[in-house]
């Protein structure tokens, strides 16, 4: 018994070192972008040439860049709103609608994870051309709603499932209509998850390149702008300064969204530890994309 415990401990030690190495592998290439964005050389190479903020200076007054940023922000906000609206309604009806149609919609809504981005891109390209819209901001918004949809559905579904059934039943028993129950009871209870889903959907859209590449008209998004700059070796440092700013914002939003999600789940768990059903959640509320 004692020996087994020692073995486990030692195994844990080796594994711990491995996990540390894995984290370094995960983060090191990403962290090179901020490192070289401060390097006073046009090339990303060692030895470092000295500290400079010059490349961040080139970001100011760049009208193509600020235009792309504005496009990305607008598209991100609209697409995240659409994806969150769909995520909330689809998962609510999936759990409480008790109809095959609602379950089918929920299953299809999570399908885009099993379709490569290139195919999502071309299918929507055909669709928007057929509709007469053509490649445009609207087309990118539609594409990003699709790409973000599995995330919002999974986040909202696990959130609704974690709200004790009795709360909704009590509201209905006391005579509240479906609308009132949804709007005054279920939505306020899931507000942290809704904000979290919105933020994650916004991030997905803001960073998305593969689908936007097919659907962009004359106004590029920020990732498309970066792509167009990658051809010019001279603009490499500017791309790294821009990339650093994007990474910083992404980390911040993702961290906030995760905190909101966990706080919301922890609060429900405290209030109702007894009858919790959470089909898509682990103990800590990690997302599971697949119910295999």
């Amino acid at each position, binding site marked *: 018994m004692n020996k087994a415990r020692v073995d486990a401990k030692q195994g844990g030690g080796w594994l711990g070192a491995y996990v540390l190495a894995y984290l370094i592998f995960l983060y090191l290439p990403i962290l090179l972008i901020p490192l070289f964005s401060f390097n006073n050389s046009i090339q990303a190479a060692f030895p470092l040439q000295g500290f400079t903020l010059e490349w961040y200076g080139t970001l100011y007054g760049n009208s193509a860049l600020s235009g792309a940023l504005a496009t990305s922000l607008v598209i991100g906000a609209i697409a995240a709103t659409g994806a969150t609206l769909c995520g909330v309604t689809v998962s609510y009806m999936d759990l409480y609608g008790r109809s095959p149609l609602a379950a089918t919609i929920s299953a299809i809504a999570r399908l885009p994870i099993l379709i490569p981005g290139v195919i999502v891109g071309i299918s929507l390209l055909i669709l928007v051309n057929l509709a007469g819209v053509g490649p445009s901001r609207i087309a990118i918004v539609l594409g990003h709603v699709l790409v973000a949809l599995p995330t919002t559905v999974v986040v909202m579904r696990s959130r609704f499932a974690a709200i004790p059934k009795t709360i909704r039943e009590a509201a209905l028993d006391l005579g509240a209509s479906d609308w009132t129950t949804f709007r005054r009871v279920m939505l306020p209870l899931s507000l942290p998850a809704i904000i979290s889903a919105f933020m994650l959907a916004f991030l997905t859209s803001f960073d998305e390149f593969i689908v936007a590449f097919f659907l962009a008209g004359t106004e590029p998004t920020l990732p498309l702008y970066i792509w167009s700059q990658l051809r010019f070796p001279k603009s490499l440092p500017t791309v790294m300064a821009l990339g650093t700013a994007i990474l910083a914002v992404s980390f911040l939003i993702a961290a906030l969204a995760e905190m909101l999600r966990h706080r919301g789940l922890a609060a429900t768990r405290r209030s109702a530890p007894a009858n919790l059903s959470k089909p898509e959640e682990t103990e800590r509320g990690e997302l*599971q994309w697949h119910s295999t």
Partner: protein
Amino acid sequence: MSTIAATQPLPEPRSSPGFRFAMLLPGGLVTFLLILFALGLVFFLAFRGNDGSLLGTGFTFANFVTVATDPLYWTVTLRSLGIAGLVTLATVVTAYPVAYYLAFHAGRWRGLLLFLLTLPFWTSYLLRVFAWKIVLAYNGVLNSALIESGIWSEPTLAFLNTPAAVIVTLAHAYAPFAILPIYVALDTIPKSLLEAASDLGAKPFTSFRRIVLPNSMPGVLAAALVVFVPTVGDYVTPALVGGPASTMIGTLIQAEFGKANDWPFGAALAVAVMLVILAVVLVVRFADRRYGSRT
């Protein structure tokens, strides 16, 4: 009598049609129009001839005949499958020990570790690929670091523009996808099973091989699927770090809808990719059933 009434709630009154309609509308529109109808369009276009118009002309199998008979498409498809397969293998095998540590050893660090491991998932895919371009370039980070430290005397071209570069970059980009499904599967294994095994005299490795590994297979298969699907159709990574020797099927589809401007043929390639993915999904489903999915 009253206890029965209390424990058996009345059947819920069916919700109002207006409410149901409004709640099903947004999701219904998106799923049926943007997903099913749009995919149907790709399928339809794949059977049309290219005359430069949006929906092509006539009904033809010619696109599929070309895909099936031209050795170029066989080469590229097999290469895509090979690269995506190796990436999937690499991500799943390297992620497994991490997920194992999270499930059984992480203790109070678990929350922080999970957070750190999922954070890159939400950062720009393009930037993660771009990072590898500056690492592997001729006058890039790896070459200059090796020369600076005196290991090599001159830079090598051997890093960038190789299939190996594509595999490493994709494996890095999709690493966060693989950990969560495996971790979830490991975390839901009842601890009593492991205690029973150890009480009955199983050595740690035996209980890993006979209990932990088989029980975590559904998670491993789910992880393999979420890594394989996006990588098999990828065109960004081959374009940035792959060079001409690592053209993938996604690159060809993108070219048909861009420079080559033969949409029906591009649609046929896309249908072929979806069939390949469907086959993989079916194999995974079958394997999952054999392992007796617990979810």
